[in-house]
C-alpha cells in the first residue's frame, strides 16, 4: 500500500456536498476549522493486497459470529448492557426463522483494521456492527472522486509507460453501494414472504446537529428505495406506542398513504401506520437503557416480535461492544489478525489501550506506554452499567508521511451480508483515529 498526493479537484467542496457529505468541516479547539475530507491524497493497493484483506475481513467476521455465540452464553456477563438489553440480544441471536433456517437478518457492519501496508496480516482494532458510519464517504464520495480522477486523465498518466499485466484501468476497493442495494433487495423479498410488507421506516435522532446521522440514514434509505422499498423517515422520538392495540406506530398520516388496509381512523381522520420494518441509526444500548426518554425498550421484551424487522437486529449488540475483542482473544488466542484483549486488566502488557465498552470514534480511549498514560480521551458515549473497560494491546499504526506531516491510516473495512465489499480509510496525525481524522479515498493500481 502506498500513499499518493494530488492537487485538490477544482470545486471539490461542491462535489463532496453533492454526494451527501455535508458535515465535513469541524472545529478543533486550539487549531480552528478542520476539514474531514482529504481530496488531495489517496491510498493505493495492489489487487493481491485487496484480495488478501478481503479474505482476512471475512474470516474475522466469521470469528465474530462465533464470539457472539460465546457472549450470548453470558460468559462475559451482561456486557455493560441493561439486563433487558442483554436478554433481547440473546433472544435475537437464538431465534432462527423457521422458513429460511437463517438467523434474524443483518445488513452491514464495519471493521477498523490496522494494516502496515507491506502484506503483513492486518490487526483488528474494533468492529462496529450496530451503527457504523462513514458510509457516505466510503460508498459514494470516494467513488465520485475516482470517476473525476479517471475522466481527467490523471490516473492514466500515473501508470503510463509502466508494465501492467492487468487491464490498465485504475480501480477502487469499493463495491459497497451495489452490495447494499442487493442486500436490501433480499431483505425486501424476505419481508414480502413473511407478510410484513414493503414499507421501511428509517429512524434517526433529531439531536444530532452535525447532519451526519440524518444524511447517513437518508442515503441508506435511497439505496433501499432503489431496491424497491417504500421508505418513510421518522425521528426516534416520534415512534409511538399504541397502548390499546399493543403495537408501534409512526406519525399520523393521510389514509391514502396507508400500506395496510383497515387501520383505525383517528378523530382527525388520519391513520397511524404500523412499524413493521425499521432501519435505525441509533444504538441498541441506548434503546434498551430503560432511562426516561429511552423507556420503550421493555415493550420489545414484553411483546416479542412487535416490530418484526429491525436493521440492525438486536443481536448486533454483541458486535458493537468492545468486549467482543475479549471474546475473540479467548476463542482464538494468538490469531494473526487479533490483538490480545482482556476485560479485567492489562495482564502484564506494558503498552496497552483502555477502551470503554460503548465508545465510538475514539472517545474515551487511554493509551498507556511503559506504565505512563500518553493519551486520555474524554468520554462522551454511554458508559457500561458496570463501567466496563477493555484492555487491548497497543499497536503502532504505520506512518505514510505526506507534505503536511505524518499520516496514520486505519482501514474501515465494510461487510455486507458476510462478505467484504470495500474500504474507507481514515488517517490521523496522532495515534488515535478520533473525531478530527481525515478521510482519504483509495485506489487499486492496474
Amino acid at each position, binding site marked *: 500500500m502506498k500513499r499518493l498526493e494530488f492537487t485538490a479537484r477544482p470545486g471539490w467542496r461542491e462535489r463532496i456536498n453533492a454526494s451527501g457529505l455535508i458535515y465535513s468541516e469541524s472545529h478543533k479547539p486550539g487549531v480552528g476549522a478542520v476539514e474531514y475530507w482529504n481530496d488531495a491524497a489517496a491510498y493505493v493497493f495492489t489487487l493481491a493486497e485487496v484480495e488478501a484483506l478481503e479474505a482476512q475481513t471475512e474470516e474475522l467476521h466469521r470469528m465474530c459470529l462465533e464470539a457472539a455465540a460465546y457472549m450470548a452464553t453470558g460468559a462475559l456477563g451482561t456486557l455493560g448492557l441493561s439486563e433487558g438489553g442483554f436478554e433481547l440480544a440473546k433472544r435475537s441471536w437464538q431465534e432462527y426463522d423457521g422458513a429460511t433456517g437463517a438467523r434474524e437478518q443483518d445488513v452491514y457492519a464495519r471493521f477498523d483494521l490496522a494494516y502496515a501496508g507491506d502484506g503483513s496480516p492486518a490487526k483488528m482494532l474494533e468492529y462496529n456492527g450496530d451503527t457504523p458510519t462513514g458510509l457516505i464517504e466510503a460508498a459514494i464520495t470516494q467513488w465520485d472522486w475516482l470517476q473525476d480522477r479517471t475522466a481527467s486523465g490523471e490516473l492514466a498518466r500515473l501508470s503510463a509507460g509502466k508494465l501492467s499485466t492487468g487491464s490498465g484501468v485504475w*480501480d477502487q476497493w469499493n463495491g459497497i453501494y451495489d452490495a447494499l442495494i442487493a442486500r436490501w433487495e433480499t431483505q425486501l423479498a424476505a419481508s414480502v414472504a413473511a407478510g410484513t410488507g414493503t414499507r421501511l421506516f428509517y429512524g434517526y*435522532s433529531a439531536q444530532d446537529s452535525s447532519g451526519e446521522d440524518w444524511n447517513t440514514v437518508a442515503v441508506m434509505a435511497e439505496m433501499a428505495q432503489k431496491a424497491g422499498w417504500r421508505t418513510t423517515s421518522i425521528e426516534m422520538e416520534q415512534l409511538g406506542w399504541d397502548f390499546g392495540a399493543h403495537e408501534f406506530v409512526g406519525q*399520523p398520516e393521510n389514509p391514502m398513504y396507508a400500506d395496510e388496509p383497515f387501520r383505525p381512523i383517528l378523530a382527525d381522520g388520519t391513520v397511524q401506520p404500523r412499524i413493521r420494518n425499521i432501519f435505525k441509526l441509533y444504538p441498541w444500548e441506548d434503546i434498551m437503557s430503560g432511562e426516561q426518554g429511552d423507556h420503550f425498550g421493555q415493550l420489545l421484551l414484553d411483546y416479542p416480535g412487535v416490530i418484526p424487522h429491525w436493521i440492525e437486529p438486536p443481536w448486533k449488540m454483541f458486535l458493537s461492544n468492545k468486549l467482543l475483542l475479549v471474546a475473540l482473544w479467548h476463542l482464538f488466542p494468538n490469531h494473526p489478525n487479533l490483538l490480545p484483549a482482556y476485560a479485567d486488566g492489562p495482564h502484564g502488557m506494558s503498552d496497552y489501550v483502555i477502551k470503554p465498552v460503548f465508545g465510538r470514534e475514539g472517545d474515551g480511549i487511554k493509551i498507556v506506554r511503559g506504565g505512563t498514560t500518553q493519551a486520555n480521551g474524554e468520554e462522551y458515549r454511554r458508559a457500561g452499567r458496570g463501567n466496563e473497560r477493555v484492555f487491548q494491546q497497543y499497536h503502532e499504526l504505520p506512518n505514510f508521511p505526506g507534505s503536511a506531516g505524518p499520516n496514520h491510516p486505519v482501514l474501515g473495512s465494510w461487510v455486507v451480508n458476510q462478505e467484504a465489499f470495500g474500504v474507507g480509510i481514515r488517517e490521523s496525525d496522532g495515534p488515535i483515529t478520533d473525531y478530527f481524522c481525515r478521510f482519504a479515498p483509495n485506489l487499486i493500481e492496474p
Partner: protein
Amino acid sequence: MPQHSATRRRASTAVSVGVTAVLATTLAGCANDDSTPKADYAKICREESTQLRVEDEKCNGSGGHGHGYVPYFLLLGAGRTTIPAVGTKTMGGTTTIPAGKSSTSVDRKGKTFSGTSRGGFGGSGKGGFGG
C-alpha cells in the same frame, strides 16, 4: 468461502445519489399530532348526585358548589383513552389535582384519544450516534 474473481472490477458500477430524491422520500412527520393528550388532566364539570357530566358553565357560577356541580379531573395518559360527552356518567376522577399539574378542557361532545405515547426512544442525549 465467498469467491472473488481476480478480474472482477471492485468499484460499484453506477452510483447516483439524488439529493432531491432523498428529500422527496415520504416525510410523514409533518402531520399535527392532535391525538396525544398534552395536559396531565382533563377538566370537566360533574353533577355529584347523578355522576353525570354537565356543561362546563355550570361549574363557573358562584353558586356552583351549592347546586352540586363540581369541577372534575380525569387523569390523561396511559390509562385513559376516552373523555365522556355531556350527559354521560363519569367516574374514576378526582376533584383536586396535585400542584404543578396541568389540565385542559374538553369539548362537550367528549373526546377519544388515540392512546399513543411517544418520546420513548431517542432520548439519550447528544447526537452523532454512529461510529
